[in-house]
């Protein structure tokens, strides 16, 4: 069964930050001197020019400028970047164009500039409104900046913005987590992402772990969070994502629905469905290496063609994150495989009460959502046939 060409998104990575946060395992680098904005924008456009044919004429539905801290870039650079993108790939007229912003790097003028450049959605990494907690997280901003950033976004004309929050912070109580979420809600973003802080390998926190609240406290925080969010009209649609009606993040949703995306910039990952199957491309990770090689095949640090069994796992890893599951048909559309190919793990998952399959919708149960890792692990290649 050939894979139908899925919707296409575009991710552009801007890898610099003012400084590296101790919990962050993303491909980000502390900007030591001046960020080479102009050179980087040019490199990104060269990189996109190289990848554009992979889109095979499809329109780009969503664009995400992620980082790092993209808001470190000047509005002029962002404008040049977006103009360049439009010249290289067809961008849908109603495309969602998101830029990640750090409250420590914003001012009203900048936000207006981003808006004028064509950005129509902001994602602001506030993480917390508690000064002590922000300090513990190594953030460069405080409560005042966080509140100001949300205000600036709205004044600049961004009605559609997201606030990133973290919970389960060092020394955090359930009540403190509740105050954070209520503060965020009061700012009326269209979207809230609430992540549990986890200690990832290759981070400072992993080497020097802070004392985090225990499992039960974190569980209680999550219950409180979900409750507050639901009551104020933010519906959970993914593990950590909550949105007002009509404001789910289309870009992220495309990842979870196993759509296609071009990954442009240092360390960016792309996924493309082609006649011969799915292809995954990763770009040179370090900014210097990327700057050197962008526009040539050497910038593609790896190209991978997942096997059938890899594909099953990768699809489930994404799609099962969706709170309401997905149409069974989506599996075939995206992977070119049939439900019979996942009969064994599906049966195991249903047997354990981790998911349901009815009316052609595959949906994780409440238990499956709580134990998503266990559910997804059933679809690991080594387990599929057992």
């Amino acid at each position, binding site marked *: 069964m050939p894979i139908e060409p899925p919707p296409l998104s575009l991710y552009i990575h801007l890898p610099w930050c003012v400084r590296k946060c101790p919990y962050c395992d993303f491909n980000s680098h502390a900007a030591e001197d001046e960020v080479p904005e102009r050179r980087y924008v040019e490199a990104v456009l060269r990189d996109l020019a190289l990848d554009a044919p992979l889109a095979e004429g499809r329109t780009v539905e969503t664009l995400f400028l992620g980082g790092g801290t993209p808001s470190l870039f000047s509005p002029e650079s962002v404008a040049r970047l977006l103009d360049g993108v439009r010249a290289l790939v067809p961008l849908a007229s109603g495309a969602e164009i998101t830029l990640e912003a750090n409250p420590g790097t914003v001012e009203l003028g900048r936000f207006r500039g981003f808006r004028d450049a064509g950005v129509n959605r902001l994602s602001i990494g506030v993480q917390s409104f508690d000064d002590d907690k922000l300090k513990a997280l190594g953030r460069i901003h405080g409560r005042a900046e966080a509140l100001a950033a949300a205000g600036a976004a709205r004044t600049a004309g961004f009605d559609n913005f997201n606030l990133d929050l973290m919970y389960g912070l060092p020394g955090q109580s359930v009540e403190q987590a509740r105050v954070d979420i209520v503060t965020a809600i009061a700012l009326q973003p269209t979207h809230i992402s609430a992540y549990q802080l986890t200690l990832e390998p290759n981070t400072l926190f992993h080497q020097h772990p802070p004392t985090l609240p225990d499992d039960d406290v*974190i569980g209680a925080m999550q219950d409180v969070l979900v409750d507050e969010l639901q009551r104020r009209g933010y519906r959970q649609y993914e593990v950590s994502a909550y949105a007002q009606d009509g404001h789910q993040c289309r870009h992220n949703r495309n990842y979870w629905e196993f759509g296609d995306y071009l990954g442009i910039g240092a360390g960016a990952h792309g996924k493309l469905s082609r006649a011969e199957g799915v292809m995954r491309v990763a770009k040179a990770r370090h900014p210097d290496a990327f700057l050197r090689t962008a526009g040539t095949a050497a910038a593609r640090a790896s190209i991978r063609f997942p096997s059938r069994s890899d594909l099953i796992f990768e699809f489930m*890893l994404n799609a099962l994150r969706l709170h309401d599951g997905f149409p069974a048909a989506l599996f075939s559309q995206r992977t070119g495989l049939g439900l019979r190919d996942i009969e064994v793990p599906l049966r195991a998952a249903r047997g*354990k009460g981790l998911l349901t399959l009815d009316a052609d919708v595959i949906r994780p149960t409440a238990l499956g959502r*709580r134990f*998503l*890792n*266990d559910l997804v692990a059933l679809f690991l290649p080594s387990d599929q046939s057992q």
Partner: protein
Amino acid sequence: MSGWQQEFIRNFSIIAHIDHGKSTLADRFIQLCGGLEEREMQAQVLDSMDLERERGITIKAQSVALNFRARDGRTYRLNMIDTPGHVDFSYEVSRSLTACEGALLVVDVSQGVQAQTVANCYTAAELNLEILPVLNKIDLPAADPERAIREIEDIIGIHARDAIRASAKTGVGVPEILEAIVARIPPPRGDAEAPLKALIIDSWFDNYLGTVSLVRVIDGRLAPRDKIRLMATARDYAVEQIGIFTPKRKQVDVLSAGEVGYIVAGIKDVRSARVGDTITHAHRPAPTALAGFKEIKPRVFAGLYPVESSDYDAFRDALEKLSLNDASLQYEPETSQALGFGFRCGFLGMLHMEIIQERLEREYGLNLITTAPTVVYEVATNKGDVLRIENPAKLPEPNHIAEIREPIIRATILVPQEYVGGVIGLCVEKRGIQKDMLYHGRQAMLTYELPLNEVVLDFFDRLKSVSRGYASLDYDFLEFRASDVCKLDVLINGDKVDALSVIVHRQQTDYRGRELVKKLRELIPRQMFDVAIQAAIGSKIIARETVKALRKNVTAKCYGGDITRKRKLLERQKEGKKRMKQLGSVEIPQEAFLAVLKVDNTK
């Protein structure tokens, strides 16, 4: 070709506590007598198995034939016969000593006399061996030779004033020891013309030669192509090869009365050439066998199960190979509802069990679950049968049982006076009956009758902890004795787990049940559901604990980026679970099956 004349032969063993310097001393002897070139002197030649070397103990007896040129200008053949150094192997020790006329008692002067040494010395004294005390490690700053002398005289009861002071490490006093062996240990007095009598000291399996037995010729002569008979089994074999270890293997044409060497005679497995058996000639058999032969019986049993059921065949092969070299290892197929197919294995004691387990895992790469070790119970049924129960799960229903008898040991514990109280408390807790208590200067010697079951659980560790490591223990099997014991079952989410059943004394059921479920609660990780752990006697639940369900197991962030990292995380989680056993919907880690051993008795 008549071999060595007996007046030039000296056969001796070294009696020493672990770490008191036996191996180093043996190395020195070999060096002084030119048994090996300098470059061949691998450290501590006698302990040849890696595990033995790591643990500093000897499991298989070995021997070395040394040529020593004494000050009298004559050359003597010194046969040094190694002895296993642990309580589990006391029978083997007695056979090694039987092959000697004398023994060196090596005492570390910084530590003094230990129980193990005492027990072996008593055995040597009973066998009328000449015992030469050696005070080792006199070069250490903590050396207290006067105290060691007093202890040897008080506790062991031999003169130690003229004990040789030596340091195996520096070599001081070592030539004097060799001279004393020649001067004071009597030569063997066998009759080379009498019918052959040779004692099997040890047997092992060699991949090229088959079964090799270390023997001491008591009377007569042994030569290649002789037709021999093993008296315990009355089976005949043809001698293929005889020889000695120098320590290198060297063939000889004859082994005469008084000599020690090896014999290869096409014997299929080590079980046919049992330690303590007598070898004689088929055409001219000795009228009686040497005394002291015993059938060795395993005393401690445990179920061993491969974690991966597909490893079963490899596991069986590994046991077969190990038992080629270890006549005391028993194994029989066993099936557990909880653990699937495995083997019930019988061991001489806890150390023996640990060694076998470690070898199975290390040398054969097996991943095994071991159930809590248990002793053998004799169960008299109402029908008048007597059953030997090696697995708690197999204990008959209480209404079929007339009486249960448990194995009792006689334990000798040597401990510095200040810890006597703690040791007595421990023995009482372990249902011990005091038989004797003697003070020898600084040390006390306690004799107790103890149920072996209690010793198997955690006695060694506890003894070490109440005495800060100073107490030492030796024991002998005494008898089976009627006891009020019963089976304690464990239920996980309502299902009885056969592999977790233990037999306990009725007085201890409540306490043990409570502690066992508490320990299991610590060992069983939180999972998707609550896990109820119950302890039961018959249908009566006596204790309960719950492992509360985990709140969640979710990856907070996953976007278009690096999927391989998420995958690795999940694979690692899954790998962790592989080491656990799935019982129904509950995952139980391997350690849980040994939980009963880890119950903390310090109330």
